[in-house]
């Protein structure tokens, strides 16, 4: 079974939990969701990556799977900073929240961001990848 994202070569996973980064990479690779999976363990690392590649559109991820509950800088803090990035970057990237948060407020807040396309409950599985594919790349 393949759930390849159309026109999406690179996916970035932002999660402090190593197992989740690992599983996400495994699943996406297995189902050939993307050619390349970049995993970062913090929002800061993600921002740094995006900033350092802002002039290289080809190196930017087309999808960012963003955890909410992370130490130091949460997923929402990331969204605030992300808003300050150049248009080029933002036009290239689609953000999908991936969290185990049950807070309805979290869900609502995330969906209010113009950059967030979908909100997924952990764990990630092929069915959910299909949802993303349907919701964000069609």
């Amino acid at each position, binding site marked *: 079974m393949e759930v390849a994202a159309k026109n999406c070569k690179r996916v970035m996973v932002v999660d402090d939990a190593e197992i989740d980064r690992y599983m996400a990479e495994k699943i996406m690779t297995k189902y050939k969701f993307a050619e390349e999976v970049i995993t970062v363990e913090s929002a800061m690392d993600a921002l740094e990556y995006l900033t350092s590649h802002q002039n290289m559109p080809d190196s930017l991820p087309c999808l960012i799977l963003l955890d909410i509950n992370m130490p130091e800088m949460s997923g929402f803090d990331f969204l605030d900073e992300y808003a300050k990035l150049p248009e080029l970057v933002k036009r290239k990237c689609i953000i999908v929240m991936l969290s*185990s948060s049950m807070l309805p407020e979290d869900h609502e807040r995330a969906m209010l961001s113009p950059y967030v396309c979908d909100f997924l409950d952990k764990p990630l*599985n092929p069915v959910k990848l299909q949802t993303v594919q349907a919701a964000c790349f069609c």
Partner: protein
Amino acid sequence: MLNKLLQEQIKQHLGTDHPVELTCLFESISDSYNHYQLGKDGKADIDKLKKEIRESKDNNELLETLKESINILKEEDGAALQSTENVQVLQLARLLKEETRNRRDAEKQKLQHTAHLNACQKIVHIGSWEVDALAKPNDPHFWSDETFRIMGYDPGSIAPTYTTFFNAVHPDDRLPVITKLEGYYKTREPYEIEHRLIAKDGTEKIVRSIGEVIVDEETKEPIKIFGSLQDITHRKKIENELKNAHYELKTLFQNMQEAFYSIDMNANVVLQMSKACEEIYGYSADDFLKNVDLLMDVILEEDKHLIYNNYPAMNAGESFKQEYRILHKNGSLRWVEGRINPTLKDGKLVRLDGVTADITKRKMTEIALKENELKFRTLIENGSDGIAVTDEKLNLTFVSNSMLRLTGNTVEEMIGKSVYGFFPQEDMETLNQTSKALFDHPGVPAPIKGKFPKKDGTFFSYEGFVTNLLHDPCIHGFVTNFHDVTERQNAEEALKASNEELKKTNTELDRFVYSVSHDLRAPLASILGAIGYAETETAEPDMLQNLALMKRSAQKLDGFIVDILNYSRNSRLEIKQEKVDFNDLLSDVKNNLKYMGSGHTSVDIRINVNKSLPFYSDKSRISIVLNNLVSNSIRYCNPNITDPFVEVTVELSDSTAKLVVKDNGIGIDKKFHDKIFNMFYRLSKKSEGSGLGLYIVKETVEKLQGSFNLESEPGKGTEFTICIPNNNTQIDDDGSCC
């Protein structure tokens, strides 16, 4: 006339040639002439007279004429000269002179008398009148000057008649006057009558009229009627006034509510006692007149000393006033006020004049008033409420003890001081606004609250009302009632603070529960993710079964965490009023539950929302309810049928939302219907639930002031009906649409 006659005779008889001896005659004649003619033709021309006499030719004729003259004069005296008497001319002239002198003197005297009489009449206001007895009504009357004046005329200005007089008599008095006069004509007795008359100028006078008839000595026939008219208006007026005053005094004395009495201290008897004593003491005036001691006996034994105390003053001639109680004859107790005025003679008490007034009513009112005032004062002084009164300039005129207690001030530190001086600067504007409102709306209490400084520099909080009672004659000021709310306010503040604290704690707890649950759920999700991935990596049946067991346990644990989370959320969080879109909400529910794991995926979730009406309630709570019910339907679907489904129908109205969750699952036996909503109650042994789901549903629906109903039959399915009020309408519906 006599003089003219003389003059003519002399002229006729003496001619120009006359003897020297006639000089005296000239003088006499001119004297007579002067006497009669004075003031008419001026002094007689003696020279002319002398000449005329000298020219007279016939001395005898002169002599006769002189004789005749003297006789005329002497006729009245009856001493006429006989014509035969040989009298010398000179002698005659002397006689004539003498007679003329006598007459002149008599005339003078008479004039003097008349003037005297007139003056007398004027002084005593008595006029006189005279009339012929047979005079007719319009025949002339003689009136004295004073009579003229009494009648309102200038003396001599009219010719008075009886009619003039009668017309002046007051119309109401004419009959008695006529009666009296007629009677008088008959009896000829002197008469006397007092009557009114209207003077010419219209003033009414009272006169006393006295009349007397002068009768001819011989014939006994009336000749003249003579009378007097006395103006007694003034006297009568005084008399009347005196009479009235006397009458009034008498009436007063008898009708006064005070008892007046006099005591002769020498004889030790009551001289007089007014009628009022009957009312005051119950004893008659006679009782007192007979027994001088009664006045003292009626005084209440314990009040007698009050009178004794006044004895020294009384003996010194000083009047005194004393309130005391007496025992009325009927046995009742009365308060009286006695005023006693002693009279001393040679330093000795001889007489007492006293007045006793019944003051029971006044005294009772006074006592009642005093008691009332005392009561109110006690209330005001002992009440915890502070009371302050200010005048129109907001200067304090009264402060209650409680206010002094609250502020720690003394009376001197507050009375007369402006209230502005007590309030802190920042309160001035409020104070001005309040006083303006008070001036604008007299009688309307204005609420006040704030902090008032104590003497020690601290403040107390007050709350109360100020009322403008400037118009009230008793108060004439602003009245402030207030109470110390410091403690209450402190308690309120403490309560508020602890409430805030509690809220904070609650929020923190909520946050904590979430954090913990997240920290619990996150690894569980990871585990589930790993298990899910592992399942796809192997075809080994044993391995798959093991993984499935692991997965179920992990899911159960996750469900448990979610339930606890929902429970805690429902019990603590406030109910929100937000717009609920059931289509959105149900599609979320559907999305949440479609990965409920293998074996359940085949359950069809159907959604029916009848119409789109604005509905306001707590979205997340409704979501919890629906999630629980739908997940139950999925969890307990009938494995033996081919088309398991769960159908959620929403019927919206202005007042409620009716939610029906219907499935064709395994159903619940009626005997468990009551129990399944209990906390931690689990029906199925193979249940994957926490035993909290339906309990949370029940609690949440109750929290939303809704109602629910369960219909279920084993093997057929289950139908939950929930009604939730629409808070848009603000109608406090109990949601009992089921």
